[in-house]
């Protein structure tokens, strides 16, 4: 093992840097807090939001989220690293998540993964040189009836065949699902004004029936 110590005294966040999170994102994060009894509970939604807007959750973003939710940056760091869906370093524009559960593997999931690696010239957790794709694996995408399957950002590609890969990768819309969405949830952060009808008051309620 290496006995060189990693220096944790060095700051990774420039204290003078301009804020990373836009006013809209901040407001939206704070609006989540009304749903829960503790501010901290809004951490996961906040991380999702930040990752969706910035592509990843950087150190500075962690500090800013911590300040918003009245917790320590270390708490954010702690929670964030537990979940495989959040990353602290930039990834490609589209993240391909290949399922490696048993159903998928029995039906050729590993071959799909290998083909993708060869095609994109990257290893797992790598990002292609054009910054277009990143490749990760996930234990199960709960799409076992469509095995082997893979997820590109939001879109689940089912019954992926090796021959289909080129077609899927070439498709510009391969990461979007076309469906009606909730106005409450998917409204862009800036326009965020309406909350689920009652979200501001209900948590103060303590009596029942």
């Amino acid at each position, binding site marked *: 093992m290496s006995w060189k110590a990693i220096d944790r005294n060095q700051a990774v966040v420039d204290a003078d840097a301009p804020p990373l999170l836009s006013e809209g994102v901040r407001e939206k994060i704070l609006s989540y807090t009304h749903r829960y009894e503790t501010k901290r509970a809004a951490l*996961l939604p906040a991380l999702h939001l930040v990752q969706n807007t910035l592509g990843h959750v950087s150190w500075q973003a962690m500090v800013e989220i911590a300040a918003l939710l009245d917790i320590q940056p270390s708490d954010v760091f702690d929670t964030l690293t*537990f*979940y495989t869906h959040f990353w602290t370093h930039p990834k490609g524009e589209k993240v391909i998540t290949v399922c490696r559960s048993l159903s998928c593997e029995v039906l050729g999931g590993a071959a799909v993964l290998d083909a993708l690696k060869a095609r994109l010239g990257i290893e797992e957790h790598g990002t292609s040189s054009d910054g277009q794709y990143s490749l990760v694996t996930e234990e199960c995408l*709960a799409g076992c*009836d469509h095995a082997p399957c893979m997820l590109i950002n939001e879109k689940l590609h089912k019954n992926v065949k090796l021959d289909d890969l080129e077609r899927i990768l070439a498709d510009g819309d391969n990461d979007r*699902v076309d469906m009606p969405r*909730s106005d409450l949830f998917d409204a862009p952060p800036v326009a965020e004004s309406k909350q689920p009808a009652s979200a501001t008051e209900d948590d103060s309620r303590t009596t*029942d*029936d």
Partner: protein
Amino acid sequence: MKNVGVDGSTTLKVYESRGGYVAARKALAMDTNAVVEEVKKANLRGRGGAGFPAGVKWGFLPKDRTTTLLCVNADESEPPTFCNRVLMEHDPHQLIEGTIIAAYATRSQVAYIYMRGEFHEQFHVLQKAIDEAYEAGYLGKKVLGTDYALECYIHRGAGAYVCGEETGLIESLEGKRGQPRIKPPFPAIEGLFRRPTVVNNVETLSCLPHIMERGADWFTGIGPPHSAGPKLFCVSGPVNKPGCYEAAMDITVRELIERDDMGGGMLSGRKVKAVFPGGLSMGVLTVDELDMKMDFEDPRNYSLLGLGTAAAVVVDDATDIRLVLRNVARFYGTESCGQCTQCREGTSWMQRIAQRIESGAGRMEDLDLLLETARNMGMMPGLSICGLSDGATYPIETIVKKFRPELEAAIRSQPAGQVEAVLQAAN
């Protein structure tokens, strides 16, 4: 599952036109205790894996509580389970209706639907449905015009199997790492935000509208007495029609795979080698054991942990059992939360052994080592905080025990000196 496959099944209009929210109206007209009694009478056992009766779980809530919280467990991460996904994708309003009934019965005023982060499409479907329900007055300040108020939020997970455990889910909802909590106190006494909390699975809640509508007797009339009600069974792997099918719980694994209205038999040229009948954690069946009944009791006769999620994955005879072993071991090695020693170290050790066996450097003693490690992780209940460790034990143990000849043959066929070479290179 009556609305699956119906065009526009996700919209409120279609759902209402097919008799939706009738049960909720009925339930809200009743006394809360009467609803609990009805569910108890239906002997609705939790569909999430453990099979604990939902009504009894509600009964644990302290009588003098002022606030109750309801969590809907939609963190379906057990491979190869996908019935909740199907339910949410095609019949979101049924879940919402079930949630309303459960929330009313437990006097909860907030319901959190904890949905795994991999579900994107399903999230949009369900969120849209919730919006519709708010607009139509099924959720919000005055549910169905009564004084009962209910808020419903979706909370998205982010890729952690262990958050499907109810206390892990609660921790995750509180914005912490999803490590299961020590019990007691049970969530019913002190759960989310230290309030009495009920955690129920999507499928369990989806049963509620039917129980309320048609009565407990209808429900108990389906299937064997200890495993009442219809259940969703998932079939995946090299079968003709992988998917999610509803049946009573007296169906056998063989039927599930071979019936034409279900799995539809194996793909041509493939034979069954092994089946994980209840999700990975429950353990494996050999081809000779396919007559096992998919209920809450029978799996124990086949040295399995239980029914689990009733999601069967079929492994065909072309698949090396070492691959299966490694896949299973890796799953637990990656997904252990790392809190309890046995689980943290044991799963990762088993993963390393299984990987080495697959790479062609297995030793005979590795098989015994796997068995012993598995035993040390789940020798007795209570060795770890949650059930993940037991869940990791059963598949490994049953694979090694039931497929030992094949594993031994594979190890015997390795070239001499392979083990030493691999170990030397690795260390």
